[in-house]
């Protein structure tokens, strides 16, 4: 019984370690897109993405900034920004910033 409880606790701990921010979080699996920001610029003709990645909840690298996402698509006027959070067992996580604009 103690072993089972230990495994569950360790699993929950590990899962929560690598979870990215998201409006709703699944300890085992998260794949959520949500809105982040909106401006008065209505038109979007370009889309850019920037990404950050984490492994095992121990190592995290990348650049998920608005600036990089806009730069990747040559966007100078941002229309709105979405984000995508993806996590599997807390072992592998990615966080994407998706910028729309012109």
């Amino acid at each position, binding site marked *: 019984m103690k072993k089972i409880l230990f495994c569950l606790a360790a699993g929950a701990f590990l899962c929560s370690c690598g979870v990215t921010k998201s409006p709703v979080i699944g300890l085992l699996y998260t794949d959520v897109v949500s809105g982040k920001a909106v401006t008065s610029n209505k038109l979007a003709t*370009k889309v850019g*993405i920037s990404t950050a990645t984490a492994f095992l909840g121990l190592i995290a690298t990348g650049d998920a900034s608005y600036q990089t996402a806009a730069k*990747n698509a*040559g966007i100078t006027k941002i229309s709105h920004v979405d984000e995508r959070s993806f996590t599997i067992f807390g072992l592998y996580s990615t966080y994407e910033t998706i910028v729309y604009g012109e």
Partner: protein
Amino acid sequence: MNKYVLLILLTTVSFVGNTQKIHRQYSFYPQEGGNVYFIHPQKVFESGNDEALNKLAYDITYLAGKDSASFTFTYYTHNVFKIDFVKLLTDKKDVLFEGKAITYFIQPEKNYWRQRASVTLPYELLAKLFQEDNSFIISLTGEKSVNYQMKPKVWKKQSQLVLKIFDVVKYNS
């Protein structure tokens, strides 16, 4: 206990490897003046050239109703490689398209250079390219020329994915 750890790791690798899930590969934004479709970056083109490091990653932005789409890509080289033109060639090296490249940025990273550029090309041509049996070749031309192509197995998966997204464009326009 080791078995469970292995199972979790295998499941993770399988999930991560299965990034072909279509909803994660494109974005679709409806707006006045035409829906915007965006195929997320696909790091699939390889080069045999020693100057080229890593794979070339491309993404496509298409504003519905327009004749052209924006084909944007990131490429990595040992030294700065500013390009002037982008050529798309068939598997047999016949030129299908040549367009002027717009460089977004050139920046150093560790011991190599990361460069991002874009070319505008006819949407119909793009749709046709992905219907071919073999991968087309991207030829980046500046002071020198570097070619990139997908491996046959990668091309098979990639063309199916892109054609399915083009179907989304067709049915929602």
